[in-house]
C-alpha cells in the first residue's frame, strides 16, 4: 500500500514519478458506481493531461493519495455521466439553484443529478476557448460569465449525455446564467422552470407576514418558504412521473446523505482553516466545497473520498505539518476562481485562503432532519448568499476580518457576470478600510505577469501591515 510522503505541493511531473510506486492493487481499489470494469479512476494528473487537460502542467497538487484520488474522481466526471447513462441510469440536469434540487433528484433510485454550469472550469483546465467560442457563436456574448460554456456543452453533447430532464431555477439566481438557461431551452430540451424568491426583510413590504430567521441571522417572510416548498413539490411530482416511484422516505435518505457530505466538508474546512500550518491546499479545498452540489455524480464514492481526505488532514494537523510556509497570511476569497491556477498561485506568494464566499453557501449548511423534508430544503436554501443582498453576502467575511481571523480579501471578478462582477464595487465599498484586491479573471490561459504582479504587491502589503 502506498504511504504518503511528507506533505508538499508537487507538480504533474512529480506525481508521475510518485505514481510509479502505487501498486496495481491500490489502483484497482477505487472505483465509481462500484463498477470494476470501467469505473477505475485513480490516475496521475498526466493521464488527464494526455486527454487535453492542459493546465495540469502548470498546477501544483497535494501529494497525498487522498488528493490524487479526489482529482482522479473529479476529472473523470464526464466519463462517469456517460457510463451512468450506458448503465441505464437517468441523467437529470439541475441548473441555477446550486445544491438543493439535486437532493430531490438524488432521492430517486438510479437518478443522477449534475450541474452543467460547473463546466465553466473546463475552458480553464483545458486552456482552451473551444467552448467559449462556440457559446459566442450561439449568441452568448463574450461579456457574459464563463458559465456560458454550458451552452456550448449542450450543443456538443460530448461533455455530458443529453439529460433525461432539466430543472432550471431562475428569479433571484444569477441573471447571466438565467439567460444561458433560456438559450439552452431554445435548443429544444425538456425543461421545468422554478422560481427562486429574493431574500429580503418583510417588514417594509407586507407587515402581516410572519418572519423566519435563518441560522446566519437573515430574515425573510414565511410565504417565501411556502412558495419554495410548492416549487420543490413540483420537482418531486415530475420525478415521480419520470421514474414511476413515489416514496418520500427516499427523500429523507437523500437529505441524510447530503448532510453527511456537508458535515464532513464542514469538518474538513474547520480543521484546515484553524490549523497552525495549512494542511491542505486551497485549490483542492475549493474542489471539495463544490462537491457539495452533487458529489460529482456519485455521492457514495464522494463520501468515501471525503473521509479519506479528512483522515489525511487530521493526521497532518496532529503533526502540525503543512503544505505552505508557516507565516502565510490568511485571506478570504470571494467568488469562485474561474481559473484554478489563481488559487495555486496565491499560495506560491505567501497567502493562505482560510475563508471563502463561492456563492454556494446554501450547499454547505446542514439541512434540518427533524422537520418535513421540503420545508427543510426550503429553509436551507433561503440561507443562500446568491439570493440576498451584497452586504449579507460578505457579512461573515466582514466579521472574520474584525476578529483578525483574516487579514485581506481577494475578489475574483468575472467580467460581465451578474452576481460575480456587478457586486465587486459594492463589496469594495462595504469593506472599505480593509485590504481588498479585486482582479478581473481573464479568458483561459490569460493570467498575465501584470496580474501576478498585482497579486504579489497585495501579498507584500499584507506582510508589511504585520510588521
Amino acid at each position, binding site marked *: 500500500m502506498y504511504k504518503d510522503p511528507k506533505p508538499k505541493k508537487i507538480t*504533474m*511531473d512529480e506525481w*508521475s514519478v510518485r*505514481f510509479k510506486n502505487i501498486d*496495481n492493487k491500490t*489502483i484497482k481499489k477505487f472505483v465509481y458506481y462500484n463498477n470494476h470494469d470501467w469505473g*477505475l*479512476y485513480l*490516475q*496521475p494528473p*498526466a*493521464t488527464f*493531461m*494526455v*486527454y*487535453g487537460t*492542459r493546465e495540469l*502542467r502548470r498546477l501544483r497538487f497535494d501529494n497525498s493519495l487522498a488528493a490524487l484520488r479526489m482529482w482522479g474522481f473529479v476529472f473523470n466526471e*464526464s*466519463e462517469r455521466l*456517460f*457510463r451512468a447513462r*450506458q448503465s441505464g441510469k437517468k441523467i437529470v440536469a439541475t441548473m441555477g439553484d446550486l445544491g438543493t434540487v439535486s437532493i430531490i433528484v438524488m432521492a430517486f433510485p438510479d437518478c443522477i443529478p449534475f450541474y452543467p454550469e460547473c463546466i465553466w472550469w473546463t475552458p480553464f483546465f*483545458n*486552456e*482552451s476557448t*473551444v467552448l467559449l467560442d*462556440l457559446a459566442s457563436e450561439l449568441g452568448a456574448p463574450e461579456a457574459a460569465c464563463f458559465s456560458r460554456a454550458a451552452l456550448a456543452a449542450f*450543443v*456538443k453533447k*460530448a*461533455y455530458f*449525455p443529453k439529460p433525461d430532464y432539466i430543472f432550471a431555477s431562475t428569479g433571484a439566481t444569477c441573471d447571466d446564467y438565467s439567460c444561458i438557461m433560456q438559450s439552452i431551452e431554445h435548443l429544444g430540451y425538456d425543461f421545468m422552470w422554478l422560481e427562486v424568491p429574493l431574500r429580503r426583510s418583510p417588514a417594509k413590504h407586507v407587515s402581516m407576514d410572519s418572519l423566519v430567521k435563518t441560522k446566519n441571522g437573515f430574515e425573510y417572510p414565511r410565504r417565501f418558504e411556502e412558495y419554495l416548498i410548492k416549487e420543490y413539490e413540483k420537482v418531486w411530482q415530475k420525478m415521480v412521473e419520470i421514474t414511476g416511484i413515489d416514496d418520500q422516505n427516499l427523500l429523507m435518505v437523500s437529505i441524510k446523505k447530503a448532510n453527511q457530505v456537508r458535515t464532513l466538508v464542514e469538518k474538513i474546512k474547520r480543521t484546515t482553516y484553524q490549523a497552525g500550518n495549512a494542511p491542505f491546499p486551497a485549490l483542492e479545498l475549493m474542489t471539495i466545497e463544490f462537491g457539495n452540489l452533487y458529489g460529482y455524480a456519485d455521492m457514495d464514492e464522494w463520501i468515501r473520498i471525503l473521509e479519506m481526505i479528512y483522515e489525511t488532514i487530521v493526521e497532518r494537523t496532529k503533526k502540525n505539518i503543512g503544505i505552505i510556509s508557516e507565516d502565510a497570511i490568511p485571506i478570504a476569497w470571494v467568488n469562485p476562481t474561474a481559473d484554478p491556477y489563481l488559487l495555486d498561485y496565491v499560495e506560491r506568494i505567501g497567502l493562505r485562503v482560510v475563508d471563502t464566499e463561492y456563492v454556494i453557501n446554501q450547499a454547505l449548511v446542514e439541512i434540518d432532519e427533524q422537520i418535513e423534508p421540503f420545508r427543510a430544503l426550503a429553509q436551507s436554501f433561503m440561507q443562500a448568499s446568491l439570493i440576498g443582498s451584497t452586504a449579507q453576502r460578505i457579512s461573515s467575511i466582514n466579521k472574520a476580518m474584525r476578529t483578525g481571523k483574516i487579514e485581506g480579501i481577494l475578489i475574483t471578478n468575472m467580467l460581465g457576470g451578474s452576481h460575480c462582477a456587478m457586486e465587486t464595487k459594492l463589496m469594495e465599498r462595504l469593506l472599505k478600510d480593509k485590504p481588498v484586491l479585486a482582479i478581473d479573471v481573464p479568458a483561459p490561459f490569460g493570467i498575465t505577469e501584470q496580474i501576478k504582479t498585482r497579486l504579489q504587491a497585495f501579498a507584500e502589503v499584507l506582510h508589511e501591515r504585520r510588521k
Partner: protein
Amino acid sequence: MNEGNSKREILTPRERFGLLLIDENPDRCNIIPLITSHAAHIARIPLSKYYTDGKAMAQAQIIALEEYRHDALSFFSEVGIIAEAMGSDFDYPDDDLPVLKTPALTKRSLSSIDIPDPKNDKRLPVYLEALEYAYATVGDKIPLLAYVPAPFTTGMMLSVPNTFLIQTIRHPDLVHDIMKICLQAAIEFCYHIINAGGLPIIVDPLASSSVISPKAYEEFALPYERKLIDFLHRYDLDIILHICGETEPILELLPNTGADLISLDKVDISLALDKLSKKMRIVGNFDTSKIAFSSPSEIEKEAKEMVRKGMVSSKGYIPSTGCEVPIRTPIENVKAFINSSKEIAWYWD
C-alpha cells in the same frame, strides 16, 4: 473545416476521440490516416530535418493538419528510434528516412546496453520536443499519437534482422533477454511521452505475419506487447496497437495483447470485423499503395466502401490507412480519402 461534406462539424477531433473511448458514438468517425513523414512532404521540409528537429516535426504535423483536417496527429518517422538510442547506428540520408547501418548487438554485448534516457539519448528528445510544441499549440483540439516501437521490433533493430530471426529458433532465451530490455526501454519512452502530452500508440510491424510465424509472434512479440500495454493501462490510457503487413494468421491472438484499438493493414476488413470488433475498436485499413497511386475518384469509391463496412463495428471504428501514408503521396489523393470518408462516416443526423 468542412470540406467534402455538407454537415456541420460540431466536435473537435479531441472531443470526437474522447467519445469513442468511452463507447459513445461521436458525431462521425474519427478519420485518422497515418500521416507521419508524409507531413514533411506537405510542409516542404527535408526529411532529415523532420526527424532530427522536434519543432520542425511538430510544425510539419500542424501544417498537414491545416491541409487535411484529419482527427489526430502522428508523431513518427521510423521504427529504429529506440534501437538507435540503445546503440544501433543509422545513416541519415538527406531526403529519406534513417537507415539501419550497424546494429548495437554487432558491436556490444547485451549486458552492456543501457536503458536509454528519452530526454537525452539520440533522437528520442526530438519526439518529446515535437510533442511538447504541438501540445502547447493545438493540444486542446486534437489528440497527439506518439508511435512507440514495440519490444520485438526494437529487438530486431538491435541485431542483424536475419540473425535475430534465426535466434528465435536457436537461442530463444537470448531473444527473451533482448525483449526484456527492449520492454524497459519502451516503458521509459512511453512514460516521457505521456508527460509530454502524447498518447502512445504501439507499433510492431516486424512482428507481422509477413515477417514471422504466428507461433513466433505468440512466443516473442505478443507477451511483450501485452506487458507494455499493461503498463499503459495503469494510467487508464486507451491504447492502439498497430501492426502493418499481414495479420490474418494472428487475428485471433490480437485481443490477448490487451490493446483497446487495433490498427490493421493487409487483412480483409470484413474478416477482422467478424473476429475482433466485439472485443476491440478497429482502425484501418486502406491500402497504402492505392492511396499513393490510384486516382482520387478511385480512392473515393474504395474509401467509402471500406467506411461503410467498418462502421458496423460495435465497439467503434476509425477509418485509416493500413500503414503510413507514403511520403510523396499526392495531396489530392489523401484529401480524396479523408473527404470521402467524412462524407459518409456520420453517426449523428
